[in-house]
Each structure stands twice: as C-alpha cells, then as structure tokens.
C-alpha cells in the first residue's frame, strides 16, 4: 500500500470514524483541528495533531492552503476530507493533484461536474437517468413558458445550491416572476452564482439515494439504497436501508440508474446518487450526486458488511474495487438516528456546551458513531450532530425494536438534545409502517403542536 499516513481534514464523529478505519488498516494519522477541538476525542486518537487555526471554520477547517500545507508538512500521503467542510471543494482536490498528495475522493473535474446542479442534470439526461421536469430559464418569457409546461406547484432552485439550500416554492403561476427575482438575488449573495432553474414540485416524495463505488476507470458498483425521507427543513434525521415498500422493479431501476450516472463520469471513490421518488406516480427523478462519504453511510455498512472508508482509501490508493457487484449482499435492515445537540422545545435551537456525563448504548446489532465522551465540549461553531445510533437486524421490525431500546438506554447530561424527539419519531405508527414521505416530519410536528 502506498498510503501510509493520512491527513484527516475534518472533526467530530466523522474524524473519529476515519481514524478508526486508519487504525484498523495500520495507517498513521494526522488530524487537523481548530483551537476549539484540541481536546476532542479525535485529537486523542490521532498519531499527530496539528492546529489549523482559530475555532471559526473559515479560519481553520475551510482553509484549503492551510490543510494542504499541514498535510505536506507532516509528510502525509493522502488527505481524507470526510463530509461537509472541504469534502466537495474542487479547489482542494485540484491543489492535491498539483502537490502530489492523494485526495481521498473523486477527481476535481468530477466534483465540479456534479457540484453544478445544471451540469449534473444535463449529465443525468445524457446517461439516460430520469430527471424531474424543469430546466433553466434565461428570460421571464422563457420562465413563464417553462412553468406552464411543468405546471404548478414548482420550485425555483439555485444552480449553486444543494442540501435544501437555495430553493423556493411557487404555488401560483402569477408569483413566478417575483419569486425568481428574489431567488436569483439570494443565490448571488449566498453562492456567488445568480443562476436559477425551475423544477416540478412533487407533493408526496421520498428521498431515496443509492450508494456507489467507482474505480475511476469506468467500473461502478452499487451498495443498495438508503431512504432518508425523515427530514426537518431538508436536514435528515433518520435514515434506513432498504427503502421500505419500494416496488422491486423501481428499486432495481434506481440502482441501475445510479450506476449509469456514475459510470458515465468514470467516477472515482464513494459517492451517492440522490433521487426523489414520486410516490403517487411510482417514478423517480435524479436530484444530485454527493461526491463524498455521507453521514448516513453506516446503515449501508451494517447490511453489506463493507467498510466504506476502507474502500475509499483502497480506491484512492489505486487498488480499485475490492469486490464485484455479485459479491454485494444486503443482509437484513438497518436504521440510523441522528442525535443532535439542539433543543426541540425551542425550535431546535443549537445547544452547545459541555457534556457532563454520557452513556451510549451497546447490544446486538447496535453501533454508535460519536466523538462525545464524558467532558466533551460541543463548540458553538459547528454542526450540532453529536452522534449517530445505528441498529441492524434481520428485518426492519427487529432493527426498529433494537433502535428504540438503544435510544432508551442513552443518557446525555449537560446539553439539550433531540433524543426524546427522536424516540417519539420512532414510536410513530406511520414511521413504524415504513415508507413515509418527506412531508412526514412536518406533519408529525404539527400533530405534536396540536396535541400540546
């Protein structure tokens, strides 16, 4: 193996997750931290820790030159970007390419190709992957004509957005022009890119995504799908595999479509092709591709038995795919629940602070990915997710029962969390039946409010 020392350019649970696999593989690690994370679990685990800068992400974790300099200066062969932060920044991948450091992820060109929503959409069309009716409009007249074709309600989306950021709903055709102006101005301010496009709005949709691995030479395999429809304001809260009650033909078609999309790019590494599943029409549309490891990757690992971080490293190391499609078997079902340091009683306001005491669950089929131990600090500068609790079982009912029991065993003192809220979600009869759409959580919250 050429990769002997990896620079981990991330924090929190994913840094710990990457460090664990590196340890298992006998790879040395250097962790870049901000001043706020010097005492973190990851900093304890890494072979070497380098402070990148102050707590504010823009002055530390988001500094591409500093990260690459730190990796070079500590003689690392490769950089693992995790998710978020610099994970989908083509500039980082490009600088790594220029400096002969292995970027554990796709090529800079691939990141750019999937990062621009309009280009990704065109690529999907070219790969024969269904896209949601819609498109770009360069004038108010064009927009009007396109809107009539698509029909309302429709969405105005920012070309540079993603993850739920930069989109607006148009309920009535006469609101279109004003909404587009506003969306364009906001997109310019938020993403430095004023381009917007229109898209059909699906009233009842599910977020279903397919995990893929590509060797960068055109070989791509899938590792099944994940259903991430339990979302609050486009933030995923519960994820599972397989997607419940999905017609087998649709499931297979999604897997094939994801492979076609990634293969056409000769995609390298681990990636996720996201689809919107239109429930009433039993149709699916390409949403976007995430060119990184995802938060919810453990459910896929649970059912396939494959260490996705290890596969990322192997591919980056030029070893190609460790398995063929027929080697992938999905065993049972797995559900993941995100535990966030945020207060559902106060509109999910972040609740930074110090964890005075914590107890994570153990047991058959239970996995916890976290950086939170007794005394851990949750700085106010970063994402509020503090743990992922994953339950695996021979079937969904068993996995769900295990997850409920596991959450009941969790104790977190010192900060407010969404633990009780997540327990209520898992106890909901609709969720228990499975296959809820992306509107489920909003209805659940309204119901909770009405009951209060």
């Amino acid at each position: 193996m050429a990769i002997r020392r990896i620079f981990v350019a991330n924090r929190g649970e994913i840094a710990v997750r990457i460090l664990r696999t590196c340890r298992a593989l006998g790879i040395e690690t250097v962790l870049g931290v901000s001043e706020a994370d010097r005492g973190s679990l990851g900093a304890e685990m890494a072979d070497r820790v380098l402070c990148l800068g102050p707590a504010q992400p823009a002055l530390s974790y988001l500094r591409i030159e500093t990260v690459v300099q730190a990796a070079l200066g500590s003689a690392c062969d490769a950089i693992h970007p995790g998710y978020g932060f610099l994970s989908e920044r083509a500039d980082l991948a490009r600088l790594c390419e220029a400096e002969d450091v292995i970027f554990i992820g796709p090529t800079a060109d691939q990141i750019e190709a999937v990062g621009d929503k309009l280009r990704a959409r065109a690529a999907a069309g070219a790969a024969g992957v269904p896209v949601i009716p819609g498109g770009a409009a360069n004038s108010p007249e064009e927009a009007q004509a396109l809107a009539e074709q698509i029909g309302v309600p429709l969405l105005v989306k920012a070309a540079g957005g993603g993850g739920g950021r930069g989109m607006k709903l148009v309920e009535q055709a006469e609101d279109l022009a004003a909404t587009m102006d506003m969306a364009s101005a906001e997109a310019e301010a938020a993403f430095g890119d004023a381009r917007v496009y229109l898209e059909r709005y699906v009233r009842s949709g599910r977020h279903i995504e397919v995990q893929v691995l590509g060797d960068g030479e055109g070989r791509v395999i899938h590792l099944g799908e994940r259903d991430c429809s339990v979302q609050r304001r486009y933030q995923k809260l519960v994820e599972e595999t397989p997607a419940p009650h999905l017609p087998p033909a649709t499931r297979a078609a999604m897997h094939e479509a994801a492979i076609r999309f990634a293969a056409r790019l000769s995609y390298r590494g681990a990636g996720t092709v996201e689809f919107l599943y239109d429930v009433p029409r039993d149709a699916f549309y390409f949403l976007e591709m995430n060119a990184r490891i995802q938060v919810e990757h453990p459910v896929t690992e649970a059912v396939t038995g494959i260490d996705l971080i290890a596969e990322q490293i192997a591919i980056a190391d030029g070893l190609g795919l460790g398995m063929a499609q027929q080697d992938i078997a999905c065993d049972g079902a797995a559900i993941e629940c995100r535990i966030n340091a945020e207060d559902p009683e106060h509109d999910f306001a972040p609740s930074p602070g110090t964890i005075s005491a914590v107890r994570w669950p153990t047991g058959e089929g239970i996995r916890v990915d976290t950086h939170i131990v007794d005394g851990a600090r949750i700085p106010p500068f970063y994402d509020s997710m503090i743990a992922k609790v994953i339950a695996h079982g021979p079937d969904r009912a068993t996995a769900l029962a295990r997850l409920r029991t596991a959450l009941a065993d969790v104790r977190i003192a010192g900060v407010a969390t969404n633990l009780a809220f997540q327990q209520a979600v898992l106890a909901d009869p609709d969720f228990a039946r499975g296959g809820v759409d992306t509107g489920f959580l909003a209805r659940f919250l309204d119901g909770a409010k009405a009951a209060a």
Partner: protein
Amino acid sequence: MTLTAADVDRIIALLDASRFDRLSLEMDGLKLDLVRNGAAPVAQPAPPPVAPAAPAALPPPTEVAMREAGLVEVKSPLLGIYYRAPRPGEPPFVEIGARVEPDTIIGIIEVMKLMNTARAGVSGEVVEILARNGELVEHGETLLFVRPDR
C-alpha cells in the same frame, strides 16, 4: 537546574555567532556572565560554571521548569513552514539576545508558497528560539521566548 560544560560551550558559540559582546544569564541559583574578547570588561567577573553531574543519562527536564518566570511566548499566527531568515544563506531575522519591538519581524511562515511575516508583538530580548528553520509549525505554536522590557 544545572548547567553542563557542553551547555556553556553552546552558549559561548551562540554569543560568538551573534553581534553581541556580552551575555548575562540568570537562572535559579545560577548566574553566568560571558564577555567577548576585546569587549569592555564587566565589573563582575563571571563565576565558574557549575560542575556537571552525569548529564547524558538525565531525562530532559520539563521545558516549563527550565525557563525563568515572566518570559513572553511569541506564537505562530498561523500554520505553515517557519523560516528564520528572509532567504536561504542570509542571516536570521533574530538571534538569541536580539532586541525586538512589537513590529520586529521574527520569521516567515509559508502557507503553500504564500509568505506571511511573523512579528514579535512585544518589546524585549529574545532568550530562546524553539521553532526550527524549514519545519512545520502549527497555529499557536511557540516560536520563541522574549524577556519583555519592564
């Protein structure tokens, strides 16, 4: 705290390489005065160095314990490669014994070919340089110690 003969040799070499004629070092229970040849004689003769006692096998004392109180740490403002001199082969920005003012440049920190100047940020005398030329320093790492003016 002991001072070995080798330590004294190193200090003499440092003084020799500097543009200073005289060095006065005071530590707990120990005072060392060194004067360069031809420099004005000092009023107080330097006491002989303390006899060393099997120094090689001793574990290095903690850095904190070795330093006098009141020294100011000059920290790196950012992560990068530290350079003591403007260019290879040129004299360093500062040496031990150098006087610094807050805006005195004490080194260059390179971040991917972008050169950033590091300044002392304090008035006083450089008493120790920790950062090694051409090596990575992290954000907030102590580059050198300055004995501040009173």
